[in-house]
């Protein structure tokens, strides 16, 4: 059954190709159904492969399928092939599963969009790229998928590209990702130079066998970390992800929950033997990157008013959790969290999409409230997602987060402390969101509070303005990017009619919510901490980890203490939020610091850097390009032109002259051969 692995990426690819050809003809909703069917088939294929995999004995769960030799070039020979092992198949499972649901949801969400079929083309291509990334049996194939998801995210984020902000958000994601890609590529070169192959089997085998020097391994891991930071939106390259909210909500769910952003986590977990053979401080670097990201993003999320931005920063924060899990050696926990996060974050995003849909594209939480009554299904499922992410047992998020914190404690208490703080903030801002959106009074006819528009404009558009400056990075000549002069909600104020009431979304949108809510509740069962026998997931992943999973030193007491602390933290966060936003006992002012709202000025710092010294460098490069490179090229061209002008006289246009020259040439050739023959 494992031989069917090629079907997993092939089906979305087929869907993509079919839609490219017939998409417009199929129209709405046929194109969507085709894409969904392709994804569903892919999910089914993944299930089959998964069953085939668990059918094998534990140490035999490592299967490669070579399709053809892809890049034969001297010493470099790269096959196009797939690698099936517990790690890749776990990723493939939740990717195809969640993607199927998101496809389904999109049919409803994208209803009436003029580019309906194009959206599904991109979605299918995205899913194909992601599966290639995960299932590829060598770094180059993974890189292909890596670039593929980058391209697709660019296309999807700027799907409504007629709006300048959306377009620049897409560009920002693309450019930021380039930095990470640079790291990935250099890492690949290093790998090839070191072991002469790019295939995972060789790389992991070499690393596991201790054939890679610690220096080299550290270099590879750090470079891959750069790639992962770009793709998985870690500090300092996380700035693109919140802007990526410009895309349609299903895209946000697909990119931020299930797939693209987890690529970095996948990559680092995949190369765990390399991490193991690097210097001892390397994992700490990863861990600190993760924990700082988790904290920074969580603080920023506190002060956001856009329903999707909150979720975006929360994603960044959760990805930070996964990173410091990897840094702490808790690979299983990291992947576990990836999976639970995929479920509940997809649920939350789709839920927010449903809310936005109901509110006629209104995204400002200050104009929502009390939606519980109007959107029963959405609100119930959203609340489940909230409880899951906040870390309330027995919802899925609790188990994975607890596991991570446990390993963090085991590794370094400082990291645990910072992580716990991040968890507290998570519980707080998520509760804030839920209370603002679903509880309290409905506020959609109220104007935004008087002092807010300016602040909100700053807060809301800080990132998009920076997006404009990112734009400047791409094109240095238009240094003064046009600021977003009209705040979005000012336009929307007129969009809602007086007798407006929110309405529940169609079934294609609510069905995925309900389906996703189920694993958001129970996915924790994958890896229960109580006894060794309940560590299903850990056992399953074992063959992929080469025994590099950290070993817990503390006893059961530590476990219970960390778990208890997690529960307390979650409850404190929720209660505090309730006090501030539900009961209005406390002013929200201290929580919504300007620094938080402006994202610690990271974006604007980037913009200033790029706009100041950066521009000078760009100008220098521009000068070099124009004068030296163009000069060389043009010089050659004008030389050729001068020669041509001189030789033009020979071209008389008279056929007989040409014929004469041919005869002369023939005579000369004959003479040449005769002299050679006589020698």
């Amino acid at each position, binding site marked *: 059954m494992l031989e069917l692995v090629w079907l997993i990426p092939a089906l979305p690819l087929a869907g993509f190709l079919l839609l490219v050809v017939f998409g417009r003809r199929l129209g709405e909703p046929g194109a969507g159904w085709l894409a969904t069917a392709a994804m569903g088939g892919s999910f089914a294929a993944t299930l089959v492969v998964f069953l085939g995999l668990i059918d094998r004995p534990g140490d035999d769960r490592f299967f490669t399928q070579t399709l053809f030799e892809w890049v034969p070039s001297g010493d470099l020979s790269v096959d196009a092939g797939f690698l099936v092992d517990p790690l890749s198949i776990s990723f493939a499972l939740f990717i195809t599963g969640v993607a199927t649901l998101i496809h389904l949801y999109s049919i409803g969400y994208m209803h009436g969009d003029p580019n309906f079929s194009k959206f599904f083309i991109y979605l299918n291509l995205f899913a194909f790229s992601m599966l290639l990334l995960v299932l590829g049996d060598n770094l180059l194939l993974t890189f292909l998928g890596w670039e593929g998801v980058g391209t697709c995210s660019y296309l999807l984020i700027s799907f409504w590209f007629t709006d300048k902000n959306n377009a620049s958000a897409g560009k920002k994601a693309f450019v930021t990702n380039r930095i990470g890609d640079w790291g990935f590529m250099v890492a690949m070169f290093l790998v090839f130079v070191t072991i002469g192959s790019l295939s995972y089997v060789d790389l992991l085998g070499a690393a596991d066998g201790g054939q890679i020097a610690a220096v080299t391994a550290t270099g590879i891991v750090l470079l891959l970390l750069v790639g992962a930071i770009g793709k998985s939106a870690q500090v300092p390259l996380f700035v693109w992800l919140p802007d990526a909210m410009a895309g349609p909500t299903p895209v946000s769910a697909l990119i931020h929950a299930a797939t693209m952003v987890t690529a970095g986590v996948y990559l680092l977990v995949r190369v765990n033997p390399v991490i193991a053979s690097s210097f001892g401080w390397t994992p700490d670097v990863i861990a600190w990157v993760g924990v700082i990201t988790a904290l920074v993003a969580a603080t920023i999320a506190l002060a956001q008013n856009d329903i999707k931005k909150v979720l975006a920063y929360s994603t960044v924060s959760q990805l930070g959790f996964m990173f410091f899990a990897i840094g702490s050696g808790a690979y299983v926990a990291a992947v576990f969290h990836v999976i639970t996060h995929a479920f509940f974050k997809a649920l939350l995003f789709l839920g927010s999409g449903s809310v936005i849909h109901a509110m006629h594209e209104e995204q400002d939480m200050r104009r929502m409230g009390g939606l519980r009554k109007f959107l029963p299904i959405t609100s119930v499922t959203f609340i489940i997602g909230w409880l899951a992410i906040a870390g309330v047992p027995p919802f899925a998020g609790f188990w994975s987060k607890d596991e991570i914190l446990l390993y963090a404690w085991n590794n370094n208490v400082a990291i645990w402390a910072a992580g716990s703080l991040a968890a507290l903030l998570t519980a707080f801002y998520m509760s804030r969101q839920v209370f603002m959106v679903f509880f309290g009074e409905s506020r959609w006819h109220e104007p935004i509070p008087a002092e807010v528009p300016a602040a909100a404009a700053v807060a809301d558009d800080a990132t998009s303005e920076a997006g404009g400056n990112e734009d400047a990075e791409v094109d240095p000549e238009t240094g003064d990017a046009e600021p977003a002069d009209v705040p979005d909600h000012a336009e929307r104020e007129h969009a809602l009619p007086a007798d407006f009431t929110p309405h529940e979304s169609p079934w294609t949108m609510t069905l995925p919510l309900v389906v996703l809510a189920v694993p958001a509740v129970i996915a924790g069962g994958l890896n229960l901490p109580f006894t060794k026998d309940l560590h299903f997931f850990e056992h399953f992943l074992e063959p992929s980890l080469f025994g590099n999973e950290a070993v817990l030193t503390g006893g059961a007491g530590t476990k219970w203490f960390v778990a208890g602390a997690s529960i307390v933290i979650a409850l404190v966060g929720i209660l505090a939020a309730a006090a501030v936003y539900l009961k209005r006992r406390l002013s929200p002012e201290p929580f919504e610091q300007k620094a938080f709202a402006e994202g610690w000025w990271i974006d604007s710092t980037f913009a200033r850097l790029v706009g100041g010294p950066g521009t000078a460098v760009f100008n220098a490069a521009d000068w070099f390009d124009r004068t030296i490179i163009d000069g060389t090229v043009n010089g050659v061209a004008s030389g050729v032109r001068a020669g041509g002008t001189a030789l033009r006289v020979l071209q008389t246009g008279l056929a*007989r*002259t040409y014929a*004469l020259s041919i*005869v*002369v040439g023939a*005579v000369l050739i004959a003479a040449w*051969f*005769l002299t050679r023959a006589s020698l």
Partner: protein
Amino acid sequence: METFVFLVGAAVILAGALGVVLSASATRAALSLIGTLFGIAVLFVAQEAHFLAAVQVIVYAGAIVVLFLFVLMLLGVDTTEDLSIEPITAQRPAAIVAGLAFFGMVMLALSAGADSVTGMPGAFDPVAGTVPDIVALGRSIFTTHVFALEATALLLTIAVVGAVVLVRKAETIDPDDDISPQLQDASTEDGEEA
């Protein structure tokens, strides 16, 4: 016997060739060309290439030169060319010098390797006549050279289509042609045949 045939054939060939080059009228040139082609066919027969001789007559004399004559007649381009002038300076002496140089080269090569053609002798002996040339030729063409055969078939088809398209276009561009429609019809038909 072969000497006689060769001498007569060579005389016809050279006379015809000179006729092509020297006669001012294009029609005379075409008639001279027929003479040359016949001479070649005769020499083919003298060298036991019977099939090629027949094909030479059928294709060259029967189709190609007929085409020339058709074009000459229909387009009225049979103006006698004034051979006493030469618009391109020094073209004529240069041509003669180059031609003689080429001929000299070939003669040199021939004298260097007279009667000693290099290469592996094949099994086909046309003089002994054990295998009729047409059988041997057929085998060669339909086994060793079958791909080339298909390619030339394709080439012919393309050529015919191309010729028809070329000629048709001119018709639509220039409807006030001085050729009567009937004759045009005939010329198109002829183009298709060859």
